[in-house]
């Protein structure tokens, strides 16, 4: 039933897009995303994927092409990394504000300056407030499956989805990936049926300047103002967690793989101490939890898949019994702390028990993060928490300056 192939994360993403029968691809190559753009162009050139590949002169245009093609009803795909994503920033807001179900892979890479081609998650974390759904993947199977799920989610709520995975660490590492049959993916993800299509037969004026108040259009219909339309984007995102969970359940029942929906848990049934992260570092942290368990610390791991919309309520429930939490992040809100840490602290504001939370910044610019190092940091935090040290300054793991 499942054809298992050993492939890179970039191949997994390309196959996910192909199986999703995307109709338009526009992408501009950037390390470590380049292979993904190349593989898709080969699929299209070779006739394996019936889609149009639009070559562009930069990332801002790549997303603009996707916005235009999506507006006329096509299922579209793009991918980028780091400064390419930052160059798209304006159009990220435009895509979400236009309520277009675009799916994009962000192959996570640190941003310049100083220049780096290596992995961290500052690029996508910095796009947190653009209105996109963000899902972080922990291995190559999850990348393939999440791209397919992303179209179901995006087309259900009319919000674009960014599928994030770690550059090099996953994008260039090969591992076994089960490739689902195209016919079954088609059943799970039927062709896109847009509720509105811009076409010559039905001309419309989209996204004109709106005045601060609601206003009648030329037909005398009272139309939403800017605030109403922005509220609707927020309302769509508020109902998205339920859609993601339902999509995850359906996917699991059809394909037999459950990636966890909003987040996944490892050894948390009797855990009192939690290691938390996004993407491949959370996977690495499961090994750290194993190590801490061997020392008698009841540790577990939570990998947050969906960073936006932030699953505050579900996480509050998941951490009900926590006596301590450490959060490892490959990005920071400069001048404060890791963004996942801030969000999780806010989510626990209304919790009955306020578990102490320590925050570690790790792996910036591709600096390797080993399970042993995560375990060492977590152990030190646990010992401090046991002594009543509930707060400590955000620590930088493996950083040699000061």
């Amino acid at each position, binding site marked *: 039933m499942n054809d298992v192939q*050993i492939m890179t994360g970039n191949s997994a993403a390309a196959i996910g897009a192909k199986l999703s029968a995307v109709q338009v691809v526009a992408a501009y190559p950037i390390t470590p995303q380049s292979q993904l753009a190349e593989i898709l162009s080969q699929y299209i050139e070779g006739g394996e994927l019936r889609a149009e590949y639009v070559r562009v002169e930069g990332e801002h245009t790549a997303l603009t092409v996707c916005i235009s093609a999506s507006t006329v009803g096509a299922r579209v795909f793009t991918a980028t990394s780091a400064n390419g994503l930052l160059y798209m920033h304006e159009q990220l807001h435009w895509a979400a504000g236009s309520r277009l179900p675009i799916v994009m892979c962000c192959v996570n890479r640190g941003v310049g300056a100083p220049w780096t081609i290596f992995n961290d998650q500052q690029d996508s974390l910095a796009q947190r407030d653009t209105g996109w759904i963000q899902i972080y993947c922990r291995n190559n199977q999850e990348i393939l499956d999440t791209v397919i799920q992303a179209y179901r989610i995006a087309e259900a709520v009319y919000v674009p989805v960014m599928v994030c995975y770690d550059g090099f*660490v996953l994008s260039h590492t*090969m591992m*076994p990936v089960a490739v689902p049959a195209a016919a079954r993916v088609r059943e799970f993800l039927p062709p896109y049926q847009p509720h509105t299509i811009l076409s010559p037969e039905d001309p419309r004026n989209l996204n004109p300047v709106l005045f601060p108040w609601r206003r009648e259009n030329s037909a005398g219909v009272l139309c939403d103002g800017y605030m109403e339309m922005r509220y609707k984007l927020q309302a769509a995102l508020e109902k998205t967690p339920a859609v993601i969970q339902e999509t995850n359940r359906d996917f699991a029942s059809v394909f037999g793989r459950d990636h966890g929906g909003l987040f996944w848990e490892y050894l948390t049934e009797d855990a009192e101490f939690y290691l938390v992260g996004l993407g491949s570092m959370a996977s*690495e942290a499961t090994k750290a939890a194993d190590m801490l368990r061997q020392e008698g610390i009841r540790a577990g791991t939570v990998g947050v898949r969906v960073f936006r919309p932030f699953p505050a309520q579900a996480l509050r429930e998941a951490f009900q019994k926590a006596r301590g939490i450490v959060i490892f992040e490959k990005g920071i809100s400069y001048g404060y702390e890791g963004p996942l840490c801030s969000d999780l602290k806010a989510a626990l504001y209304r919790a009955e028990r306020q578990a102490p939370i320590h925050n570690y910044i790790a792996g910036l610019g591709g600096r390797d993060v*080993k399970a042993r190092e995560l375990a060492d940091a977590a152990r030190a935090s646990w010992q401090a928490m046991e002594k009543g040290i509930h707060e400590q300054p955000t620590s930088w793991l493996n950083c040699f300056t000061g």
Partner: protein
Amino acid sequence: MYEIIWHGRGGQGVVIAAQMLAEAAYLQDFRGVTSAPTFGPERRGAPVAASTRIAQEEIRIFSQIEAADIAVVLDESLFRVVDIYSRLRKDGALIINSRKPLEKWETKGDCRLAVVDAAAIALRHHLSKEGAPVVNTPMLGAFARATGLVSLDNLEKALNHKLPPGQGARNFATVKAAYEETKLGDKP
């Protein structure tokens, strides 16, 4: 879990070797396999490394290998420029492509040694690329012999899957020859 580091020079095919080993190990019923290049740009002739992890269960770690169980060295001149031992367990296995016979090699620590003249095997089978003997595939045969982790059958399947049509058979001949000609040290 077994952790393997491949040392070579840019152009020698360490990345492909690491991938073919992962394929063969998966066929050998190891459920978890990963292979990764050294992340970043590569230059022809410069020292490069690639890695393979092999495990019975799904692999959850993607960090770089600290102390490998097995190091495969495609170019013995690398001992002068790369600290091969610093990333190998003291009791690990060291598999070297060298004309120098096993007896003349002195190794550090308790590592088990295996030596094969992969370049001579490649030349004997007229397997060269841009004038240099292809040593990555014969070293897979040496790996199979020295570790017993993968069978020749599964290496053959992996080769046929990875290589362009027609090249599998010639490459496999060097794998088999290296398997037979690899000399193993007497440490357990």
